[in-house]
């Protein structure tokens, strides 16, 4: 008899994927600007480290909340005992207000429909447990966050069927792609229960267009299924077009509580990206469906948010001066940082998808591939990790259907480290490929190896005819 469960025995947790392997290599040899200047620079971690100073100065001026106090009195015991899975009311109110503020107050959220969970990881898994049975499926547009394979499939037994998005239209979701995915699922005898999208997108770094959102709503309405919108990056939309939440589109289309689709649209949120607090494990489920809220609330028992953290963040997020300033500064700094990355990449002859959100760029390195294959992508990735000493995420780990794309994060490291990374990249490209800076004009060149490596001649695949409209969005 197998001693452990199937869950424990097989690697459906997905942590053997390159996404995680890159992290492991980084752990072994992490860059340090003094102690290890040749180490691997971490650009595979979508973290937001740009605005801690704002939070730190708030904390210094408002020590009460962290010190288990309220109105001068110690509430340690009350907090230590508070395990109500409905959550601290003051915190939930502060959360929904913050979520509304991020959306320019175009929509409001009801705190009674918010369920707190230990991070978005737990929120996403909980949603799947509530909406699907083992053996059923959800459709997800590719490329998508690698963690979904674990969060949505591992312990739930639910399948992910990809909605293939391609570079030809900037990876936007199309009606055809949706239908094809649905039919693919049917062919495999998988009952589709919903569509899960990430908006703003990870790894693309773009916000969904209104058209895409309308399309999704029509699709789920037509098929009678759910739509989960993971809006974890909603506060990182730093330039136009502005972020449009699925909740806003529901309102646009006059889908209120009397319409069937109203109850089937759900949102996942978290403070890990917008506020840069992944350690605090603050996630949330938002649903208009009372039954989903009720079931998710009970399930949240398996991963509640620490009352200590709820109390601190409730004080923080209730400070409207802080939230207003934070949201604005966050946008400003992210925008600047992204600009630096894009220009650094351009100097290395590399372009990327025109992004307006997120903590990363979706970078086009197809021209650096030996061949238009995932093997070639892996080869390139390994070179970048082991030789250039940059940890970036290969598109295949995000289930991208086209080889050659990489996600490169820009908000988790100091600017000078980012500059260094770009210099390394430029040197690498220059040495191996001899490609001049991207300046908007079509170019071609021969590629060659050096340094006693294989003498295979690398031929440029710089055919710009079928390239995506980089500045199309």
């Amino acid at each position, binding site marked *: *008899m197998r*001693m*452990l*469960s199937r*869950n*424990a025995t097989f690697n459906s*947790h997905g*942590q053997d994927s390159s996404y995680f392997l890159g992290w492991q290599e980084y752990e072994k040899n992490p860059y340090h600007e003094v102690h290890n200047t040749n180490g691997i620079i971490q650009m595979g971690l979508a973290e937001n480290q740009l605005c*801690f100073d704002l*939070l*730190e100065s708030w*904390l*210094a001026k408002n*020590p009460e*909340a*962290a*010190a288990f106090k*309220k109105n001068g009195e*110690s509430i*340690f*015991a009350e907090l*230590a*005992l*508070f*395990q*109500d*899975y409905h959550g601290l*009311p*003051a915190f939930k109110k502060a959360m929904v207000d913050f979520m509304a503020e991020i959306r320019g107050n175009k929509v409001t959220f009801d705190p009674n429909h918010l369920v707190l969970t*230990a991070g978005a*990881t*737990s929120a996403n898994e909980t949603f799947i*447990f*509530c*909406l699907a*049975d083992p053996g059923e499926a959800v459709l997800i547009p590719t490329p998508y966050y690698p963690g979904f394979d*674990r*969060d949505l499939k591992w*312990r739930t037994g639910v399948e992910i069927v990809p909605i293939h998005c391609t570079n030809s239209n900037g990876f936007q979701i199309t009606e055809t792609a949706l239908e094809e995915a649905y039919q693919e699922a049917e062919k495999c005898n998988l009952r589709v*229960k919903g569509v899960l999208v990430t908006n703003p997108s990870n790894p693309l770094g773009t916000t969904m267009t209104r058209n895409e959102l309308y399309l999704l709503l029509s699709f789920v309405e037509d098929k*009678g299924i759910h739509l989960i919108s993971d809006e974890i990056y909603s506060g990182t939309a730093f330039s136009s077009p502005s972020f449009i939440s699925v909740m806003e589109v529901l309102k646009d289309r006059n889908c209120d509580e009397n319409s069937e689709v109203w109850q089937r649209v759900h949102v996942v949120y978290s403070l890990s990206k917008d506020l*840069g*607090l*992944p*350690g605090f494990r603050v996630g949330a489920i938002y649903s208009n469906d009372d*039954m*989903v809220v009720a*079931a*998710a609330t*009970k*399930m949240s*028992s*398996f*991963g*509640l*948010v620490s*009352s*200590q953290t709820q*109390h*601190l963040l409730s004080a923080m997020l209730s400070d409207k001066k802080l939230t207003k300033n934070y949201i604005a500064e966050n946008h400003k700094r992210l925008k600047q940082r992204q600009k630096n990355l894009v220009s650094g990449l351009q100097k290395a002859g590399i372009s990327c998808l025109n992004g307006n959100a997120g903590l990363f760029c979706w970078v086009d390195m197809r021209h650096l591939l030996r061949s238009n294959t995932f093997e070639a992508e892996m080869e390139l990735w390994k070179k970048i990790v082991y030789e250039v000493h940059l940890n970036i995420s290969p598109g295949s780990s995000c289930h991208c259907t086209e080889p050659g794309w990489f996600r490169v994060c820009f908000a988790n490291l100091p600017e000078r480290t980012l500059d260094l990374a770009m210099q390394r990249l430029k040197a690498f490209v220059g040495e191996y490929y001899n490609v001049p800076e991207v300046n908007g004009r079509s170019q071609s060149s021969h590629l060659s190896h050096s340094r006693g490596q294989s003498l295979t001649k690398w031929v440029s695949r710089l055919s710009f005819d079928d390239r995506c409209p980089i500045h199309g969005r």
Partner: protein
Amino acid sequence: MGFTLSNQQQLLSKMATGNGHGENSPYFDGWKAYDSDPFHVTKNPNGVIQMGLAENEMCFDLIQEWVLNNPEASICTAAGVNEFKDIAIFQDYHGLPEFRNAVANFMGRVRGNRVTFDADRIVMSGGATGAHETIAFCLADPGDAFLVPVPYYPGFDRDLGWRTGVQLIPVACDSSNNFKVTRAALEAAYEKAQKANIRVKGLLITNPSNPLGTVLDRDTLRSLVTFINEKKIHLVCDEIYAATVFSQPSFISIAEIIEEDIECNRNLIHIVYSLSKDMGFPGFRVGIVYSYNDDVVNCARKMSSFGLVSTQTQHLIASMLSDNELVERFIAQSAKRLKARHMRFTMELAQVGTSCLKSNGGLFVWMDLRRLLKEQTFEAEMVLWHTIIHEVKLNVSPGSSFHCPEPGWFRVCFANMDDKTMEIALSRIRNFVAQYKEPIAPRKNNRYWQSNLRLSFQSRRMDDIMMSPCMMSPHSPIPQSPLVRAT
């Protein structure tokens, strides 16, 4: 509209629409009564006193004082704010090393330093609730089973079975031998499972026991280890009440037993722990999976992503539990105060002819009210329970909610209130027992009976007990928390 509702239901999972969470239970009555009429020493002295919640409020003064004197442990204060960023960013599921070290240190000290724990085997979870679910996900597949001696904590049905598809099979224990777990009972339960073609993956014990408040003796522990080794099944030991043992016989952890027993296959041994009971921190969600099986440690650690402990809390706990002076003082004081509370309680009850199972740990007593039952049936137990809730105004937990095979037992918690409230609770019990020298009969036209709450409890067999909805979780609404009122 009926059609729409069932349409909507079909769109949700069976898990979401079913009752596996165990909260649609008639035992909700006790909570409802408390919620609608909660006791307050000045504002509502005639309200219902909450004695159904196994919480430890005995030593907050010590902790509060420590927190005040150690502001940097709260990181976000001026003293510790420079650590804020590193803590807030840290999401490694291994957990902060200082946190794991401190917890391992604490666990060892709670066991009188008779054993040490390896910090690298400490895996976080969302409370013990999350720990139990994780263990079940690691050890068993849907349809597999765990043996659990009765009476047991009602939350196990949900924690081990709801989302995992694992079932619990009761191991019969009764008062004839003080509810001890016998080899014969284990074998019988195991065989029953075999006959029903159910694969048993493990045995789950809670030591010290909830709801009994007793500890397992060395011989019993050894026989359990022998049993699981023979059957090649896992042993999961929930030691969540380890530090609540206040008198002899002392607590013996499974960790000690396997040190002595070189034959035991350590890959079968797992401990669930938490700070919710020993320290009184259920709100902080500090659950621990400690396994001697490397594969389980690895798998549980990956699963811990679904319920990591907030690093803000990890940091606080790391500071607190590394302070050996505080730890030793806390362990000693906690035991002393629990002992005093327990003694006062049991002595007062004994004086009115009410006995409790002899116990030396936990946050509750296992009270014997069998003589007050009109007949030895669970229906009679429910009648008695309703009387206690609505007339005596005490929310206690009926034994049937713990799958107890004998009617008439009640778990009564004593560590979640101050001395004054306890005295009031005791006087109510004294008056009640004195009043009801005769067994309690159901009253005609009892306004507390509502037809939708009536249960048919004709001679319940073990299977009925196994299938009956269990009592709701401790995470269910407690709207009387001042933190809720305050908003």
